[in-house]
């Protein structure tokens, strides 16, 4: 009996792998192919007019973090790159935190509406999401530029005398990204909150938990999967964002995405661009592993 079951199990496993093969091949070509090319390019020499020369070199990787002084040839950190790395990570983290702060109450609000109204509220969240990214970014720009809505209103009310410079700052980039990526936080959060049994919240109140305690001890642990998914969905694209920092930062406040674009464009240094791309990927991977690990550990501590 056991033998029979085992053979059948093995046969089933083999069929499953066979069925999966085409998908795996496509996945391998589509996902690993470009990555492999990027990796190879990062070890080549830049061509004179863009492109690459097939000559092995680790210069690109060296230049990601270090630079030689043009005059005395001394070795130093590539301050420009490092500050862009730092800005990218910082702004992405702030965007993620901001998205949690704004997205959590939003998702909670929608999840606590009567069932037949929730779709309407979700539609309101989704409409901007379906709008072109550039248009959305320009909309935020219109709000915060010096002659924009916020400054005009504040000046008309006499609260300020001259416009506050918001556009072309890090703040502007963060606001832009927050606006653009907020739905990506609300969606998974809402999905896990909708499944939340609100009688558990009542049970919490019944057992002397205050609002804050109910939030911390009951709601947060139960919607944690949504929170993790939302954070990843916001943090990862923020880190590689290109359009928003370009428009909102006005080309002065570069992020990683802009730096990479610069190398493939004006910089004519494809290997450096490739090395930076891989670096971005590495940062994302490290951040994800760190995040998921720490989130998982907390769960074990609870259980």
């Amino acid at each position, binding site marked *: 009996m056991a033998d029979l079951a085992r053979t059948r199990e093995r046969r089933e496993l083999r069929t499953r792998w066979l069925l999966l093969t085409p998908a795996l091949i496509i996945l391998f070509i589509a996902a690993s192919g470009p990555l492999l090319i990027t990796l190879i390019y990062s070890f080549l020499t830049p061509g004179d007019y863009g492109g690459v020369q097939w000559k092995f070199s680790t210069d690109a990787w060296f230049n990601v973090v270090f630079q030689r002084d043009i005059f005395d040839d001394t070795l130093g950190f590539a301050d420009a790159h490092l500050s862009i790395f730092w800005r990218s990570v910082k702004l992405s983290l702030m965007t993620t935190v901001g998205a949690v702060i704004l997205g959590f109450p939003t998702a909670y609000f929608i999840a606590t509406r009567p069932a037949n109204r929730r779709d309407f509220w979700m539609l309101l969240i989704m409409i901007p999401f379906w709008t072109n990214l550039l248009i959305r970014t320009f909309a935020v720009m219109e709000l915060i530029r010096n002659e924009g809505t916020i400054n005009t209103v504040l000046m008309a009310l006499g609260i300020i005398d001259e416009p506050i410079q918001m556009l072309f700052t890090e703040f502007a980039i963060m606001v832009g990204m927050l606006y653009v990526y907020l739905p990506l936080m609300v969606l998974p959060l809402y999905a896990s909150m909708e499944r939340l*049994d609100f*009688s*558990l919240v*009542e*049970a*919490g*109140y*019944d*057992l*002397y*938990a*205050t609002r804050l*305690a109910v939030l911390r*001890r*009951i709601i947060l*642990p*139960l919607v944690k999967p949504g929170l993790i998914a939302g954070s990843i969905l916001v943090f990862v694209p923020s880190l590689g964002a290109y359009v928003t920092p370009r428009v909102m930062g006005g080309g002065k406040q570069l992020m990683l995405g802009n730096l990479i674009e610069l190398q493939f464009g004006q910089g004519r240094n494809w290997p450096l661009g490739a090395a930076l791309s891989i670096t971005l990927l590495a940062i994302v991977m490290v951040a994800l592993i760190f995040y998921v690990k720490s989130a998982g550990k907390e769960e074990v501590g*609870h*259980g």
Partner: protein
Amino acid sequence: MIEVDGVTKAYGSGKTRFLALDNVTVTIRKNEFFTLLGPSGCGKTTLLRVIAGFVDPTSGTVTMDGADLLKLPPYARPVNTVFQSYALFPHLTVRQNIAFGLEMLGKPRAEITQTVDEMMALVQMTKMADRQTGQISGGQQQRVALARALAPKPKVLLLDEPLSALDFKLRKDMQIELKRLQTETGITFIFVTHDQEEALTMSDRIAVMSAGAIRQIGSPRDIYDHPAERFVADFIGDTNFLPAEILSEADGVVQVRLGSGAEIAARPVEGAGRGAVTLAVRPEHATLGPEAGALLPGTLRNIVYFGTDTHYHVALDGGDSFVVRAQNQPDRASAVAEGDRVGITFPPGVGQVLRD
């Protein structure tokens, strides 16, 4: 002591306005096992939720030992609930669930551990202390829910049909256990059920509800033997309803004339009219005999054998029907047969006049 005074809860407005609770007034005494009994949708859960603080009444007051309960948020009320759906925290273990209330009250660690151990022993869940609540059976979940609500030693425990999901055997065990718990801990229990047998066996007092209003409050014996109105008599146990006419009233006894013309003493009820009334007589309080000299003559239509007892369905001469229930004796077949002329008798004072 909890005093609910004139509590009304309305849902909707205008044409769809609907009273889930309609001017409910009831006093629940200290250490009492008080049961809310009524058909589905009559407002039992709503009343519990008003006391627990999850529903704000439209009007009326609720006080506990003289203090206004409605001013307090749910987490500040010395009241715990065993929810109809248990509502155990799925991300916590059995032990952590039971400890939750104590932790929220800020009890010292050692005291929490000790109380939780006691509670788990009480509901016989010690062996499963570290299981996730998704990994235990329905009956075990129910016991954890009970332990969780009992652990903070509330003054009042609200139990919303806590036994409804259990099988017959476990249900009987839990009934006994609950009753024991209530007497031992001295906690006031407000218990919701729509199972009349459960209500009769466990309660100190029962409130029978219908359509958002309390129809009658009394001890199980009061409610069963002396229902005040037709709804209560009908909802609890089987009852025969007889048309009757009140002739006179004196010293808490009324003299009534039945449809057959016979006269007998019966129990009066406050608020009943004078002339034509309805009289309720329980099937087991009446006896079947020969036609001659009986209160109500009729024809035997049907004999239904139930093992412990037999039901005799009689068509009265006036056109009403009447059921007599007689306890069976071993090896003694009934002396009557279907179609026989028979007579029904019941002692004076057994019939109860209803308010209708």
